[in-house]
């Protein structure tokens, strides 16, 4: 055996198992999901080929899928706009070394070290209509007579907005702050000498020079919003209704609760395509001339 062949075999020995595992646990199920989306199958009996029937049903007016997309868009854009605005503001303030900047950086980032399920449970308690409900107790102290059911299905999407903002702002703040800290100080000094206001400096120096990071942040928000699952699932106690279903919860519900694997996997395929298209569109829309420094 030549040395080169020995080397190849050595490399293959180490690369083979992880690649095999990846193919077995990621690629194969993904290909299977595409296959099952073209079938009618309850997960128990024999599958039956239906072609694009599952997709046609999902996209028909009577399906819950279209309202689920609406909920995903709500959860992408409403908290997303607030998160971006607040994260940029806080990052800028910390970058300007306001008093207590270090403390704020840690405090804002803190929710990111808690698991998303624990955060949802925490907010369930905050919104609770029982004695432990922080918000309702506060409202009661302010004169509200009856507890407000914030997590009732019809209000749940709005109730998730503050939770999402609280959870995600810190992460994006740190992301944007890192980008701001990389901008050379000399640009700001020159701008100040030219009489630029703080707002002008932000608009003409900071924002253009951190545009790439901002684009990544927006893509994170879009992808996260389209895949939204945990908070809805936890706050609805595993039983989301058509008023709260997102694409991911509907997919799970179809496969594991309604035993409709064909429809569930068809949702998974559409979700994959939507995330892909949304990412590409975001990248295209946010493309700008790269500014080097």
């Amino acid at each position, binding site marked *: 055996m030549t040395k080169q062949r020995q080397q190849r075999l050595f490399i293959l020995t180490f690369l083979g198992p992880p690649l095999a595992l990846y193919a077995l646990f990621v690629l194969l199920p993904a290909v299977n999901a595409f296959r099952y989306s073209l079938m009618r199958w309850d997960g128990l009996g024999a599958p039956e080929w239906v072609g694009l029937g599952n997709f046609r049903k999902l996209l028909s007016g009577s399906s819950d899928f279209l309202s689920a997309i609406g909920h995903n868009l709500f959860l992408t854009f409403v908290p997303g706009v607030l998160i971006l605005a607040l994260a940029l503001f806080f990052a800028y303030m910390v970058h300007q070394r306001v008093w207590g900047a270090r403390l704020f950086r840690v405090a804002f980032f803190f929710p990111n070290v808690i698991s998303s399920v624990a955060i949802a449970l925490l907010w369930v308690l905050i919104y609770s*209509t029982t004695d432990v409900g922080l918000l309702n107790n506060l409202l009661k102290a302010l004169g509200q007579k009856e507890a407000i059911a914030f997590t009732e299905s019809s209000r749940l999407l709005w109730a998730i907005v503050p939770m999402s903002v609280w959870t995600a702002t810190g992460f994006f703040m740190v992301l944007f702050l890192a980008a701001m800290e990389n901008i050379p100080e000399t640009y700001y000094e020159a701008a100040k000498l030219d009489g630029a206001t703080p707002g002008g400096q932000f608009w003409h120096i900071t924002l253009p020079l951190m545009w790439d990071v901002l684009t990544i942040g927006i893509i994170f928000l879009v992808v996260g919003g389209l895949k939204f699952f945990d908070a809805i699932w936890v706050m609805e106690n595993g039983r989301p209704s058509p008023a709260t279903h997102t694409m991911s919860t509907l997919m799970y519900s179809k496969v594991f609760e309604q035993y409709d694997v064909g429809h569930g996997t068809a949702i998974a395929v559409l979700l994959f395509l939507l995330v892909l298209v949304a990412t590409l569109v975001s990248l295209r829309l946010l493309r700008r001339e790269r500014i080097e420094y």
Partner: protein
Amino acid sequence: MKRFVWVPVLILLLSPGCSLQQEQPGAGIVLEVAVFEGGYGIEWHKSVARRYEQQHPGIRINLWGDPRVDEKLKPRILRRRPPDLTSCTLPVWKLIVAGKLYPLDEALDSRAYGQDITWRQSLVPGILDDFRYGGKTYAVPSNQGAWVCWYDARQFRRHGWKPPRTWREFTALSEQVKAAGVAPLAFQGKYPTYAWATLLSLYQRLVPLERWYAMQDLQPGAFTDPEFIQAARLLQEMATRYYQPGALAMTHTESQMEWVNGRAAMVFCGLWLKNEMKNAIPAGFEMACFPVPTVEGGKGNPRAVYSWGAETFLVFADAKHPKEAADFLKFMLSLPSAHDYVQRLDTLSPVKDCVKGVRISPELQSAVDVLDRRSCIFSDRLADLYLEFSRTALQQSLADLMSGKMAPEAFGARLEAAIEDVRRNPEIYKPPARGVPTP
């Protein structure tokens, strides 16, 4: 360097999926029993298995439990290597129609353990109705449930409140409770379908059983029937006037906790309530129950009780030892085992006379009293048969009705439209109409 090639091969061979271990020959029959490990645990099942092994030396029972037993069963059902016997929450009807289950009639028509009657005769009449298909019976429940309204008898005594028998008495009581500064009803609002059994019970109070079962048999127009709309109106009035404020956002445990702590006076629930709340029930709390009140002017049977078989056991058609599994199930649901079940778990078995001669708790006695006064039992199968209906339209419509956002007429129309979708969908299996089951 060549030896490295064997590393991944060894890893794969040692992994559980590639186990080469085989059942030892000559060790007799080993029955595998997989049990859903819910609120009742699996200790009783284990003790029954040990007794069965003592009486049947050639059989060993490998019994295991898991709260997520369904997830473990699904791949095994597909590989046609299921356990011999199981209790799970998989949709029984889908399994029956897919031909995955073994008919239990031979065992049901054989002599019951410890009694001179057949096993079928030893069970509560009507309890097997929901599991019959093509003249055969495919599942047997190990628990008997009942839908009742629970209250704390001590709190009722202290305030001079009396358990109501009619709807008018119920609303009058609720007003009295409200006046005393207590919420009349706790409700498990995060699961709107908890109200389904109450609504169907109210509808039963209003119509003869023939009409009630016609709805179960998908008769067109059943949900827009004036009596069904009336039942929906009663439910809506109860929800908007007497549910604890904020109840629609409470989980089952949160709302039941409110009841246990005396902030709500009553709660509609099944017999599992005590087991579910046993760690929270304070000393001196006296759980008691009454059936869903009758409705003035209603034409329904006033002594019918919403009761059903739960914790259902199935034998798979692909099981290695289906006959032996059915026999073990018969042993599990024999009268002596049922006595032990009632005593250990403080709940009811579907075996007739399961509480006779057994010391039971006052709260279970209260439920037994309700069932003893019954003339017949009835229970819904729409929610189990048509998951497409129950997990979408029904859940959302009930939430909208109880929050007052949807009028009872619109509620009925929405359910009628949803069930029409089921009716028209050739992909959904519909069992033949069953009419009023004969006991």
